[in-house]
């Protein structure tokens, strides 16, 4: 159920002007009852014999049974990937390798409605996001990296770029298909083969992706999908025949992985958590800045590593910004992810909901002031109302720890230096936002903020050409752009 502070039932919109449920039909998706592991170009029974249901977080309904891989399964997948690599994937003419990736991109575009619905069903994010953000970006990622496959010598002048071999990739549940494309596209473009472990709670679009591989006629073993939980991920990471490990997820697990590959010589990239500061100066275009704040933390229910979870607002405009923010939060619609009018969807899992609830309680206990707009939350499923804390001190848990939910903490600052100081005062360093009319200030802040991605007068913008990754405990390595190729290559 929702958080204790949620007021019940009263909607802010008069019944005279209600938004209709505008549900996207589920019929476009055909789900199997049960999925095996995708190894060597076909679905196979897991040696583990274990299956678990994947649950829709909006309704708690089981969608399909999914195999849980064990060490033996992972070993088979790695072997398949190695064979595919040795047998020719890395030797195919690069221009032909590119064509496979172009095919994947085009097929994702053609089937985007189907994938968007499944993504929302399995993960809980609003259909508007999966349709307008996740799918187009996923296709674009494949299109972009397809273009590099036969141009690698231009990306690395004077070096001979070669693939690494088998890449073991573990991805999170917040942008399941998009994270898959961020991992698979550059890996394949560089000539590697892949063993990918989707997140435990969101395996379905990865499994549907196997059908795209079939339609694109990608040779067997080039991409292998092993579903399962953390144990399967650990097996992928530590398998000795994996040359490269790529992980996106929590900082905690990232550190475990870094420990696990220590001394093995495996190449590693990590894309971990964040606690981004979204900084608003008094000359910012205010209404648009408020949109940016809202987009920064409530987009995808705040399940975003680069979410603007700390609002740093210049004291001189504090009252005005908070008033506008609270008003705007009141017009956010929380509800059925498949409803096209929904702004904020379901929390991805019970476990995540518990974590958010615990941290929010801690916030209240530490003395911050909580605000949640009146929200009608559905009976079943896992939900959390958009929340903002004011009177937050830098030392509170809600200002330090990543909540990964629709919870914003507000702090104030007086001068640019103070903003920089507070923004950088965190072990994380993934992203930051700066809102100001003044160009030189944008550049000065960008120069001083210790974060891998800086959004000025906008937030949560992604593009396959734009390198993404963090400083400090937000991880290392970049995904996207020319720079996203390097982690997958050996440069001679």
């Amino acid at each position, binding site marked *: 159920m929702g958080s204790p502070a949620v007021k019940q039932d009263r909607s802010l919109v008069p019944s005279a002007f209600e938004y209709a449920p505008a549900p996207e039909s589920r019929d476009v998706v055909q789900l199997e009852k049960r999925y095996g592991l995708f190894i060597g170009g076909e679905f196979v029974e897991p040696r583990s014999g274990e299956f678990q249901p994947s649950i829709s977080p909006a309704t708690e309904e089981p969608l399909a049974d999914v195999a849980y891989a064990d060490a033996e399964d992972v070993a088979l997948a790695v072997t398949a990937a190695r064979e595919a690599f040795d047998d020719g994937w890395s030797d195919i003419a690069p221009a032909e390798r*590119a064509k496979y990736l172009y095919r994947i991109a085009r097929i994702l575009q053609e089937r985007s409605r189907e994938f968007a619905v499944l993504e929302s069903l399995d993960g809980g994010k609003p259909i508007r996001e999966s349709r307008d953000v996740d799918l187009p970006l996923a296709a674009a990622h494949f*299109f*972009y990296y397809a273009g590099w496959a036969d141009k690698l010598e231009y990306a690395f002048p004077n070096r001979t770029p070669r693939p690494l071999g088998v890449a073991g990739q573990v991805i999170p549940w917040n942008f399941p298909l998009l994270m898959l494309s961020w991992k698979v596209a550059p890996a394949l473009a560089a000539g590697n083969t892949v063993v990918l472990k989707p997140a435990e709670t969101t395996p379905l679009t990865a499994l549907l992706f196997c059908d795209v591989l079939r339609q694109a006629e990608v040779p067997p073993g080039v991409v292998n999908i092993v579903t399962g939980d953390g144990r399967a991920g650990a097996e992928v990471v530590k398998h000795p025949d994996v040359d490269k490990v790529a992980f996106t997820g929590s900082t905690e697990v990232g550190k475990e992985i870094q420990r696990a590959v220590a001394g093995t010589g495996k190449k590693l990239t990590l894309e971990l958590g964040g606690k981004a500061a979204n900084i608003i100066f008094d000359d910012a275009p205010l209404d648009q800045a408020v949109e940016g704040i809202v987009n920064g933390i409530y987009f995808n229910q705040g399940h975003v590593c680069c979410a603007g979870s700390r609002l740093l607002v210049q004291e001189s405009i504090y009252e005005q910004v908070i008033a506008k923010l609270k008003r705007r939060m009141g017009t956010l619609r929380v509800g059925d992810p498949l409803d096209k009018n929904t702004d904020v969807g379901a929390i991805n899992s019970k476990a995540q909901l518990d974590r958010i609830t615990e941290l929010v309680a801690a916030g209240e206990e530490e003395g911050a002031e909580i605000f949640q707009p009146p929200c009608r939350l559905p009976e079943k499923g896992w939900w959390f109302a958009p929340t903002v804390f004011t009177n937050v001190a830098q030392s509170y848990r809600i200002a330090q720890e990543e909540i990964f939910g629709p919870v914003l903490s507000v702090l104030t600052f007086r001068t640019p*230096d103070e903003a920089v100081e507070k923004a950088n005062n965190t072990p994380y360093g993934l992203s930051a936002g700066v809102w100001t009319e003044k160009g030189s200030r944008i550049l000065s802040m960008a*120069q001083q903020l210790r974060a891998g991605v800086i959004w000025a007068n906008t937030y949560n913008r992604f593009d396959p*050409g734009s390198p993404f990754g963090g400083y400090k405990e937000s991880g290392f390595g970049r995904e996207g*752009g020319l720079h996203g190729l390097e982690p997958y290559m050996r440069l001679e």
Partner: protein
Amino acid sequence: MRLPVKKTYKLYIGGSFPRSESGRSYEVEGANVALASRKDLRDAVRAAREAFPKWAGMTAYNRGQVLYRVAEMMEGRREQFAELTGSEAEVNSAVDSWVWYAGWADKLGQVLGSSNPVAGPYFNFTVPEPTGVVGVVAPEEPALSGLVARLAPAIVGGNAVVLIASEHRPLAAVTLAEVLATSDVPGGVVNVLTGRKADLCPVLAGHMDVNAIDLAGVDGDRAELERLAAENVKRVVRNGEGQSPWHAAAFLELKTVWHPIGV
């Protein structure tokens, strides 16, 4: 016995297929092909100039998708092209050229541009931009892949093109224009003229509203054309053989921007 319906080979200007305003044609490759006049060329440059802002204003990703679509459409017409050129290998090469350049659209900025560390508190960056309207004289041979090798790099960066096709083997160029017309290429971005190079090239080289010219397909006196080009300081492009992002770069300007860094 069924009589086949023979194709009329016209010009491709502004997204449509008009005959030459002169009403003239010449017989080549067993067909009558439009004989473009200087007025047709004038119209083509005008169409290109009008189409340029929209094409240049599209995102690079979009342009890449359009070029890929050209490849898709060409692939679908392999047989027709193979018949015209007499070489499947040439058709393959042409299609693959489109695919290759399509992949460059959203990468040229990263490879050709830069952020430049200057000695002062300034952010300084350089971006490539399309130069505008580009004239291309296609080589006589190979009539298809030679043309594509010149055309694709000219438009991938956002330029609009007026192209003079092979004089003795123009049918492939006109058929390619049909492919362009069905590939979401906005009208006027590519304009294809068939006819006598001796008549058309000097007009193109001397045209004051053409920003750059690729004389690869000129067999005779290049020097005179280069002299004509000097009148409006046209960029005279001398791309070599093969494919390269530098072939695209030849048609791009570089803009450098400064902005102070401060509170």
